Protein backbone atom coordinates (compact mmCIF):
# COMPACT_ATOMS: atom_id res chain seq x y z
CA UNK A 1 0.00 0.00 0.00
CA UNK A 2 1.15 3.51 -0.87
CA UNK A 3 -0.11 6.07 1.61
CA UNK A 4 -0.28 9.82 1.22
CA UNK A 5 -1.28 12.80 3.28
CA UNK A 6 -2.81 15.58 1.26
CA UNK A 7 -4.71 18.81 1.47
CA UNK A 8 -7.83 18.88 -0.68
CA UNK A 9 -11.09 20.79 -0.51
CA UNK A 10 -10.08 22.84 2.47
CA UNK A 11 -8.91 20.05 4.74
CA UNK A 12 -6.14 17.53 5.30
CA UNK A 13 -6.82 13.93 4.34
CA UNK A 14 -5.16 10.55 4.48
CA UNK A 15 -5.27 8.75 1.16
CA UNK A 16 -3.97 5.67 -0.58
CA UNK A 17 -2.87 5.15 -4.14
CA UNK A 18 -5.46 3.41 -6.28
CA UNK A 19 -5.19 2.94 -10.05
CA UNK A 20 -3.19 6.09 -10.58
CA UNK A 21 -5.40 8.20 -8.36
CA UNK A 22 -5.68 9.08 -4.69
CA UNK A 23 -8.45 7.32 -2.80
CA UNK A 24 -9.47 9.34 0.25
CA UNK A 25 -9.76 7.63 3.63
CA UNK A 26 -11.59 10.50 5.33
CA UNK A 27 -14.99 9.18 6.48
CA UNK A 28 -16.99 11.97 4.79
CA UNK A 29 -15.32 11.23 1.46
CA UNK A 30 -14.66 7.53 1.90
CA UNK A 31 -13.85 5.94 -1.42
CA UNK A 32 -13.77 9.18 -3.39
CA UNK A 33 -10.88 9.40 -5.83
CA UNK A 34 -9.02 12.55 -6.74
CA UNK A 35 -6.24 13.13 -9.25
CA UNK A 36 -2.62 13.62 -8.27
CA UNK A 37 -2.70 17.14 -9.67
CA UNK A 38 -5.82 18.16 -7.74
CA UNK A 39 -4.20 18.06 -4.31
CA UNK A 40 -1.47 19.62 -2.24
CA UNK A 41 0.93 16.91 -1.11
CA UNK A 42 2.11 16.97 2.49
CA UNK A 43 4.86 14.82 4.00
CA UNK A 44 3.27 11.34 4.22
CA UNK A 45 3.38 11.20 7.99
CA UNK A 46 0.65 11.22 10.61
CA UNK A 47 1.02 14.01 13.18
CA UNK A 48 2.51 12.99 16.53
CA UNK A 49 1.76 14.13 20.07
CA UNK A 50 5.48 14.74 20.63
CA UNK A 51 8.29 16.22 18.57
CA UNK A 52 9.29 13.89 15.76
CA UNK A 53 12.86 12.65 15.78
CA UNK A 54 14.41 13.09 12.34
CA UNK A 55 17.80 11.41 12.08
CA UNK A 56 19.97 11.73 9.02
CA UNK A 57 23.20 10.24 7.75
CA UNK A 58 26.19 11.82 6.12
CA UNK A 59 28.68 9.97 3.97
CA UNK A 60 26.73 6.71 4.00
CA UNK A 61 27.53 5.65 0.44
CA UNK A 62 31.08 4.62 -0.37
CA UNK A 63 31.06 6.60 -3.60
CA UNK A 64 29.69 9.80 -2.04
CA UNK A 65 32.24 9.59 0.78
CA UNK A 66 34.96 9.36 -1.86
CA UNK A 67 33.46 12.25 -3.82
CA UNK A 68 33.67 14.46 -0.76
CA UNK A 69 37.28 13.41 -0.13
CA UNK A 70 36.71 11.74 3.19
CA UNK A 71 37.52 8.22 4.16
CA UNK A 72 34.50 6.11 4.87
CA UNK A 73 33.38 6.61 8.48
CA UNK A 74 33.91 3.82 10.97
CA UNK A 75 30.62 4.56 12.66
CA UNK A 76 27.54 6.28 11.25
CA UNK A 77 27.98 10.03 10.78
CA UNK A 78 24.60 10.99 12.15
CA UNK A 79 22.91 14.31 12.64
CA UNK A 80 19.44 15.43 13.66
CA UNK A 81 16.99 17.67 11.86
CA UNK A 82 13.92 19.52 13.03
CA UNK A 83 10.52 18.51 11.70
CA UNK A 84 9.94 22.10 10.56
CA UNK A 85 12.28 21.64 7.61
CA UNK A 86 9.98 18.98 6.05
CA UNK A 87 7.76 19.81 3.07
CA UNK A 88 5.75 17.62 0.71
CA UNK A 89 5.88 16.48 -2.91
CA UNK A 90 5.64 19.12 -5.65
CA UNK A 91 6.60 21.92 -3.30
CA UNK A 92 9.04 24.79 -3.51
CA UNK A 93 12.44 24.93 -1.88
CA UNK A 94 14.09 28.31 -1.43
CA UNK A 95 17.60 28.95 -2.66
CA UNK A 96 19.04 31.85 -0.65
CA UNK A 97 20.37 34.80 -2.61
CA UNK A 98 24.09 34.89 -3.16
CA UNK A 99 25.00 31.26 -2.49
CA UNK A 100 27.24 29.27 -4.83
CA UNK A 101 26.46 25.62 -4.16
CA UNK A 102 23.08 24.24 -3.21
CA UNK A 103 22.54 20.59 -3.99
CA UNK A 104 19.85 17.94 -3.60
CA UNK A 105 20.45 14.60 -1.89
CA UNK A 106 18.21 11.70 -2.88
CA UNK A 107 17.75 9.46 0.16
CA UNK A 108 15.77 6.43 1.23
CA UNK A 109 13.81 7.53 4.32
CA UNK A 110 12.83 4.95 6.91
CA UNK A 111 9.70 5.51 9.00
CA UNK A 112 9.73 3.69 12.32
CA UNK A 113 6.62 1.62 13.13
CA UNK A 114 6.97 0.60 16.77
CA UNK A 115 9.13 1.57 19.76
CA UNK A 116 12.67 0.36 19.18
CA UNK A 117 15.19 0.13 21.98
CA UNK A 118 18.38 -1.93 21.73
CA UNK A 119 17.12 -3.76 18.70
CA UNK A 120 19.40 -6.32 17.13
CA UNK A 121 20.23 -5.98 13.48
CA UNK A 122 18.59 -9.30 12.66
CA UNK A 123 15.26 -8.06 14.03
CA UNK A 124 15.57 -4.42 13.02
CA UNK A 125 13.45 -4.38 9.86
CA UNK A 126 10.45 -5.54 11.88
CA UNK A 127 10.43 -2.10 13.50
CA UNK A 128 9.95 -0.31 10.19
CA UNK A 129 6.49 0.96 9.23
CA UNK A 130 7.50 1.89 5.73
CA UNK A 131 9.70 3.85 3.41
CA UNK A 132 9.54 7.12 1.57
CA UNK A 133 11.84 9.37 -0.44
CA UNK A 134 13.66 12.34 1.07
CA UNK A 135 15.53 15.11 -0.66
CA UNK A 136 17.93 16.36 1.99
CA UNK A 137 19.08 19.61 0.38
CA UNK A 138 22.37 21.11 1.52
CA UNK A 139 23.78 24.58 1.01
CA UNK A 140 27.49 24.08 1.15
CA UNK A 141 28.33 27.77 1.41
CA UNK A 142 27.19 27.58 5.04
CA UNK A 143 29.26 24.54 5.97
CA UNK A 144 31.33 25.02 9.13
CA UNK A 145 33.43 22.56 11.09
CA UNK A 146 31.43 22.79 14.30
CA UNK A 147 29.04 19.86 14.77
CA UNK A 148 29.42 19.39 11.02
CA UNK A 149 27.18 19.18 9.05
CA UNK A 150 25.81 22.15 10.92
CA UNK A 151 22.14 23.07 11.07
CA UNK A 152 22.45 26.16 8.89
CA UNK A 153 23.42 23.75 6.08
CA UNK A 154 20.94 21.01 6.88
CA UNK A 155 17.96 22.36 8.77
CA UNK A 156 16.70 25.23 6.70
CA UNK A 157 13.04 25.98 6.13
CA UNK A 158 11.73 24.23 2.98
CA UNK A 159 14.93 22.23 2.48
CA UNK A 160 13.71 18.70 3.21
CA UNK A 161 11.07 17.53 0.72
CA UNK A 162 9.58 14.16 1.72
CA UNK A 163 7.19 11.86 -0.14
CA UNK A 164 5.07 11.48 -2.13
CA UNK A 165 4.24 8.07 -0.64
CA UNK A 166 4.76 6.15 2.54
CA UNK A 167 5.14 2.63 1.15
CA UNK A 168 4.33 -0.12 3.63
CA UNK A 169 7.38 -2.09 4.74
CA UNK A 170 5.56 -5.29 3.72
CA UNK A 171 5.78 -4.08 0.12
CA UNK A 172 9.55 -3.52 0.33
CA UNK A 173 11.05 -6.93 1.01
CA UNK A 174 14.65 -5.70 0.78
CA UNK A 175 15.44 -2.01 1.38
CA UNK A 176 19.00 -2.67 0.20
CA UNK A 177 17.85 -3.64 -3.29
CA UNK A 178 16.61 -0.30 -4.55
CA UNK A 179 17.99 1.89 -7.30
CA UNK A 180 17.99 5.66 -6.72
CA UNK A 181 18.28 8.48 -9.21
CA UNK A 182 17.89 12.21 -9.43
CA UNK A 183 17.01 14.26 -12.46
CA UNK A 184 17.32 18.01 -12.79
CA UNK A 185 15.03 19.41 -15.50
CA UNK A 186 14.70 15.88 -16.84
CA UNK A 187 18.44 15.27 -17.10
CA UNK A 188 19.91 12.40 -15.07
CA UNK A 189 22.46 13.76 -12.58
CA UNK A 190 22.63 11.21 -9.78
CA UNK A 191 22.44 7.44 -9.76
CA UNK A 192 23.02 4.95 -7.02
CA UNK A 193 21.83 1.82 -5.34
CA UNK A 194 20.96 1.14 -1.72
CA UNK A 195 23.17 -1.96 -1.77
CA UNK A 196 26.10 0.50 -1.63
CA UNK A 197 25.16 1.94 1.76
CA UNK A 198 28.04 1.74 4.22
CA UNK A 199 25.61 1.22 7.10
CA UNK A 200 22.43 -0.46 5.91
CA UNK A 201 18.95 0.19 7.28
CA UNK A 202 19.07 -2.64 9.81
CA UNK A 203 22.50 -1.59 11.06
CA UNK A 204 21.34 2.00 11.48
CA UNK A 205 18.32 0.93 13.53
CA UNK A 206 20.59 -1.20 15.71
CA UNK A 207 23.02 1.72 16.10
CA UNK A 208 20.49 4.41 17.00
CA UNK A 209 18.31 2.19 19.16
CA UNK A 210 21.42 1.29 21.13
CA UNK A 211 21.30 4.64 22.90
CA UNK A 212 17.97 6.19 22.01
CA UNK A 213 14.47 4.76 21.85
CA UNK A 214 13.03 5.24 18.38
CA UNK A 215 9.29 5.84 18.34
CA UNK A 216 6.58 5.29 15.72
CA UNK A 217 6.73 8.05 13.14
CA UNK A 218 10.40 8.83 13.71
CA UNK A 219 12.50 9.11 10.57
CA UNK A 220 15.92 7.97 9.47
CA UNK A 221 17.26 9.56 6.27
CA UNK A 222 19.87 7.10 5.14
CA UNK A 223 22.27 9.24 3.14
CA UNK A 224 22.90 9.87 -0.53
CA UNK A 225 25.13 8.42 -3.26
CA UNK A 226 27.44 10.55 -5.39
CA UNK A 227 26.34 12.85 -8.19
CA UNK A 228 25.23 16.03 -6.46
CA UNK A 229 25.15 19.18 -8.57
CA UNK A 230 24.25 22.80 -7.97
CA UNK A 231 20.59 23.73 -8.47
CA UNK A 232 19.28 27.12 -9.52
CA UNK A 233 15.92 28.83 -9.17
CA UNK A 234 13.51 27.39 -11.70
CA UNK A 235 15.11 23.95 -11.67
CA UNK A 236 12.78 20.99 -11.23
CA UNK A 237 14.48 18.31 -9.17
CA UNK A 238 13.03 14.80 -9.07
CA UNK A 239 14.51 12.36 -6.56
CA UNK A 240 13.30 8.84 -7.25
CA UNK A 241 13.68 5.43 -5.67
CA UNK A 242 12.42 2.32 -7.43
CA UNK A 243 9.21 1.05 -5.87
CA UNK A 244 9.08 3.91 -3.37
CA UNK A 245 8.27 6.96 -5.43
CA UNK A 246 9.38 9.97 -7.44
CA UNK A 247 9.56 13.12 -5.33
CA UNK A 248 9.38 16.32 -7.35
CA UNK A 249 10.53 19.69 -6.10
CA UNK A 250 11.13 23.09 -7.62
CA UNK A 251 13.83 25.53 -6.59
CA UNK A 252 12.69 29.08 -6.15
CA UNK A 253 14.57 32.26 -5.45
CA UNK A 254 14.44 34.12 -2.19
CA UNK A 255 11.85 36.69 -3.24
CA UNK A 256 9.60 38.03 -0.60
CA UNK A 257 6.12 39.18 -1.54
CA UNK A 258 6.10 37.62 -4.99
CA UNK A 259 4.72 34.48 -6.56
CA UNK A 260 6.85 31.53 -5.51
CA UNK A 261 7.35 30.17 -9.03
CA UNK A 262 8.42 33.45 -10.55
CA UNK A 263 12.03 32.37 -10.05
CA UNK A 264 12.12 31.27 -13.69
Amino acid at each position, binding site marked *: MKRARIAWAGAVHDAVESDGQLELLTPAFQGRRVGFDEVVWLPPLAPLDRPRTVLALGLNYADHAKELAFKAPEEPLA*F*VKGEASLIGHQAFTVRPDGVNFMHYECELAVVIGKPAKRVKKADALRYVAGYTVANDYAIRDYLENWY*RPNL*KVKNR*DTCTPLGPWLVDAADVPDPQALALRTTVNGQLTQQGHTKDMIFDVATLIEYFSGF*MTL*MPGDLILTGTPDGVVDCQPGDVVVTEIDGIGALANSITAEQRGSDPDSGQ
Partner: protein
Amino acid sequence: MNLHMNPNPYRPGGTVYGSLLNFRREHALWAPRMHEAPYKAPPAAPVLYIKTANTFTPSGRAITLPNGVSEVEVAASLGLVAGEGGRVAGAVLFNDVSIPHQSYYRPPVKFRCVDGFLGVGDAVQPVTDLGELAAVVLELRVDGVMRQRTALADLVRDAATLWSDVNAFQSMRPGDVLMVGTDCLDDGSRPRVKAGDSVEITATGFAPLINHFIEEQA
Protein backbone atom coordinates in the same frame (compact mmCIF):
# COMPACT_ATOMS: atom_id res chain seq x y z
CA MET B 1 -2.10 30.12 21.54
CA ASN B 2 -1.05 28.59 24.84
CA LEU B 3 -1.53 25.03 23.72
CA HIS B 4 2.22 24.53 23.58
CA MET B 5 2.97 25.96 26.99
CA ASN B 6 0.25 24.69 29.25
CA PRO B 7 0.55 20.96 29.78
CA ASN B 8 1.05 20.44 33.47
CA PRO B 9 3.81 19.61 33.96
CA TYR B 10 5.19 21.25 30.84
CA ARG B 11 6.72 19.11 28.17
CA PRO B 12 8.20 20.48 24.96
CA GLY B 13 5.66 20.47 22.15
CA GLY B 14 8.22 21.08 19.42
CA THR B 15 11.83 20.55 18.54
CA VAL B 16 14.32 21.48 21.27
CA TYR B 17 17.55 23.08 20.05
CA GLY B 18 20.70 23.55 22.13
CA SER B 19 23.39 26.15 21.53
CA LEU B 20 27.11 25.44 21.77
CA LEU B 21 29.88 27.91 22.65
CA ASN B 22 27.45 30.66 23.57
CA PHE B 23 29.05 31.65 26.86
CA ARG B 24 32.05 33.97 26.84
CA ARG B 25 34.10 31.85 29.22
CA GLU B 26 33.99 28.72 27.06
CA HIS B 27 34.30 30.69 23.83
CA ALA B 28 37.46 32.35 25.16
CA LEU B 29 38.93 29.03 26.30
CA TRP B 30 38.33 27.59 22.85
CA ALA B 31 39.48 30.65 20.90
CA PRO B 32 43.16 29.65 20.59
CA ARG B 33 42.12 26.30 19.06
CA MET B 34 39.42 27.60 16.77
CA HIS B 35 41.77 28.17 13.85
CA GLU B 36 43.31 24.72 14.16
CA ALA B 37 42.20 21.53 12.42
CA PRO B 38 39.58 20.25 12.19
CA TYR B 39 37.78 23.52 12.95
CA LYS B 40 39.99 25.87 10.90
CA ALA B 41 37.90 28.94 11.74
CA PRO B 42 35.77 30.22 14.61
CA PRO B 43 32.07 29.45 14.20
CA ALA B 44 30.20 32.15 12.29
CA ALA B 45 26.61 30.93 12.67
CA PRO B 46 25.14 29.77 15.99
CA VAL B 47 26.33 26.19 16.62
CA LEU B 48 23.20 24.19 17.31
CA TYR B 49 22.24 20.66 18.24
CA ILE B 50 18.91 18.98 18.81
CA LYS B 51 17.66 17.27 21.95
CA THR B 52 15.27 14.62 20.65
CA ALA B 53 11.98 13.74 22.35
CA ASN B 54 13.39 10.55 23.89
CA THR B 55 15.59 12.74 26.10
CA PHE B 56 12.78 14.58 27.89
CA THR B 57 12.61 13.86 31.62
CA PRO B 58 10.17 15.79 33.83
CA SER B 59 11.33 17.38 37.06
CA GLY B 60 11.25 14.93 39.92
CA ARG B 61 11.93 11.94 37.70
CA ALA B 62 15.17 9.98 37.53
CA ILE B 63 17.68 10.15 34.68
CA THR B 64 19.29 6.80 33.96
CA LEU B 65 22.99 6.41 33.23
CA PRO B 66 23.28 3.80 30.50
CA ASN B 67 25.37 0.71 31.19
CA GLY B 68 29.03 1.52 30.69
CA VAL B 69 28.59 5.23 31.44
CA SER B 70 29.78 6.04 34.96
CA GLU B 71 29.65 9.85 34.81
CA VAL B 72 27.77 12.43 32.80
CA GLU B 73 27.98 16.18 32.45
CA VAL B 74 25.08 18.23 33.72
CA ALA B 75 24.42 21.79 32.65
CA ALA B 76 21.85 24.42 33.47
CA SER B 77 20.21 26.19 30.58
CA LEU B 78 17.26 28.39 29.86
CA GLY B 79 15.04 27.47 26.93
CA LEU B 80 13.18 30.07 24.93
CA VAL B 81 9.76 28.69 23.97
CA ALA B 82 8.36 29.89 20.66
CA GLY B 83 4.84 31.23 20.52
CA GLU B 84 2.89 32.42 17.51
CA GLY B 85 4.38 34.72 14.93
CA GLY B 86 8.00 33.80 15.54
CA ARG B 87 8.06 35.43 18.95
CA VAL B 88 9.36 34.08 22.22
CA ALA B 89 6.38 33.32 24.45
CA GLY B 90 8.16 32.10 27.53
CA ALA B 91 11.20 30.52 29.13
CA VAL B 92 11.78 27.28 31.00
CA LEU B 93 14.65 25.65 32.88
CA PHE B 94 16.52 22.68 31.44
CA ASN B 95 19.18 20.30 32.67
CA ASP B 96 21.11 19.53 29.49
CA VAL B 97 22.84 16.22 30.17
CA SER B 98 25.57 14.81 27.97
CA ILE B 99 28.23 12.16 27.84
CA PRO B 100 31.54 14.07 28.03
CA HIS B 101 33.09 14.60 24.61
CA GLN B 102 36.23 16.53 23.74
CA SER B 103 35.61 17.23 20.07
CA TYR B 104 33.01 19.60 18.70
CA TYR B 105 33.69 18.56 15.12
CA ARG B 106 30.95 16.00 14.46
CA PRO B 107 27.30 16.21 15.53
CA PRO B 108 26.95 14.90 19.09
CA VAL B 109 23.95 12.58 18.63
CA LYS B 110 25.27 9.66 20.66
CA PHE B 111 26.46 12.00 23.43
CA ARG B 112 23.41 14.22 23.75
CA CYS B 113 20.39 12.24 22.49
CA VAL B 114 20.57 9.39 25.00
CA ASP B 115 17.22 8.38 26.53
CA GLY B 116 16.33 10.69 29.40
CA PHE B 117 19.19 13.18 28.91
CA LEU B 118 17.18 16.39 29.21
CA GLY B 119 15.65 17.46 32.51
CA VAL B 120 12.65 19.68 31.76
CA GLY B 121 11.29 22.34 34.09
CA ASP B 122 7.67 22.04 35.20
CA ALA B 123 6.37 25.36 33.96
CA VAL B 124 7.03 27.96 31.29
CA GLN B 125 7.37 31.50 32.59
CA PRO B 126 5.92 34.10 30.24
CA VAL B 127 8.52 36.42 28.74
CA THR B 128 7.60 39.80 27.30
CA ASP B 129 11.05 41.39 27.05
CA LEU B 130 14.02 39.25 26.03
CA GLY B 131 16.34 41.94 27.38
CA GLU B 132 15.20 41.16 30.90
CA LEU B 133 16.63 37.65 30.61
CA ALA B 134 20.16 39.08 30.91
CA ALA B 135 19.46 39.42 34.63
CA VAL B 136 18.71 35.70 35.07
CA VAL B 137 21.23 33.66 37.05
CA LEU B 138 20.94 29.87 36.98
CA GLU B 139 22.22 27.94 39.97
CA LEU B 140 23.17 24.28 39.79
CA ARG B 141 23.53 22.22 42.93
CA VAL B 142 24.52 18.59 43.29
CA ASP B 143 23.18 16.98 46.46
CA GLY B 144 22.53 20.46 47.81
CA VAL B 145 26.08 21.74 47.19
CA MET B 146 26.44 24.73 44.86
CA ARG B 147 28.51 23.72 41.86
CA GLN B 148 27.88 26.39 39.24
CA ARG B 149 26.30 29.79 38.81
CA THR B 150 25.46 30.71 35.23
CA ALA B 151 24.71 34.36 34.51
CA LEU B 152 22.87 34.98 31.26
CA ALA B 153 24.64 38.34 31.16
CA ASP B 154 27.67 36.30 30.01
CA LEU B 155 26.16 35.09 26.74
CA VAL B 156 28.10 35.59 23.50
CA ARG B 157 24.84 36.10 21.62
CA ASP B 158 22.25 37.45 24.03
CA ALA B 159 18.78 35.93 23.91
CA ALA B 160 17.40 38.39 21.36
CA THR B 161 20.43 38.11 19.06
CA LEU B 162 20.50 34.31 19.25
CA TRP B 163 16.77 34.13 18.51
CA SER B 164 17.14 36.42 15.53
CA ASP B 165 20.23 34.70 14.11
CA VAL B 166 18.63 31.25 14.37
CA ASN B 167 15.31 32.34 12.90
CA ALA B 168 17.18 33.80 9.94
CA PHE B 169 17.58 30.27 8.55
CA GLN B 170 15.14 28.06 10.46
CA SER B 171 11.81 29.40 11.65
CA MET B 172 11.00 28.48 15.21
CA ARG B 173 7.43 27.16 15.16
CA PRO B 174 5.04 27.45 18.09
CA GLY B 175 6.23 25.02 20.73
CA ASP B 176 9.81 24.82 19.42
CA VAL B 177 12.45 25.60 22.03
CA LEU B 178 15.86 27.25 21.73
CA MET B 179 18.16 26.78 24.70
CA VAL B 180 20.54 29.72 25.06
CA GLY B 181 23.55 27.53 25.84
CA THR B 182 25.38 26.17 28.85
CA ASP B 183 28.42 27.60 30.55
CA CYS B 184 31.54 25.69 31.55
CA LEU B 185 33.54 25.93 34.75
CA ASP B 186 36.81 27.89 34.89
CA ASP B 187 38.81 24.91 33.61
CA GLY B 188 36.50 24.35 30.64
CA SER B 189 34.79 21.30 32.08
CA ARG B 190 31.20 20.93 33.22
CA PRO B 191 29.95 19.54 36.52
CA ARG B 192 29.82 15.76 36.44
CA VAL B 193 27.51 13.47 38.31
CA LYS B 194 27.19 9.75 38.87
CA ALA B 195 24.46 7.39 39.95
CA GLY B 196 23.05 8.39 43.31
CA ASP B 197 23.53 12.12 42.77
CA SER B 198 20.66 14.58 42.70
CA VAL B 199 20.86 17.76 40.62
CA GLU B 200 18.83 20.85 41.36
CA ILE B 201 18.67 23.79 38.97
CA THR B 202 17.08 26.99 40.19
CA ALA B 203 16.59 30.57 39.11
CA THR B 204 14.58 33.36 40.66
CA GLY B 205 11.05 33.26 39.36
CA PHE B 206 11.25 29.67 38.12
CA ALA B 207 10.10 26.47 39.78
CA PRO B 208 13.15 24.36 40.71
CA LEU B 209 14.14 21.56 38.34
CA ILE B 210 15.28 18.45 40.19
CA ASN B 211 16.47 15.19 38.70
CA HIS B 212 18.33 12.39 40.37
CA PHE B 213 20.62 10.01 38.55
CA ILE B 214 20.38 6.25 38.73
CA GLU B 215 22.14 3.22 37.31
CA GLU B 216 20.48 1.29 34.57
CA GLN B 217 18.86 -1.90 35.80
CA ALA B 218 20.54 -4.90 34.24
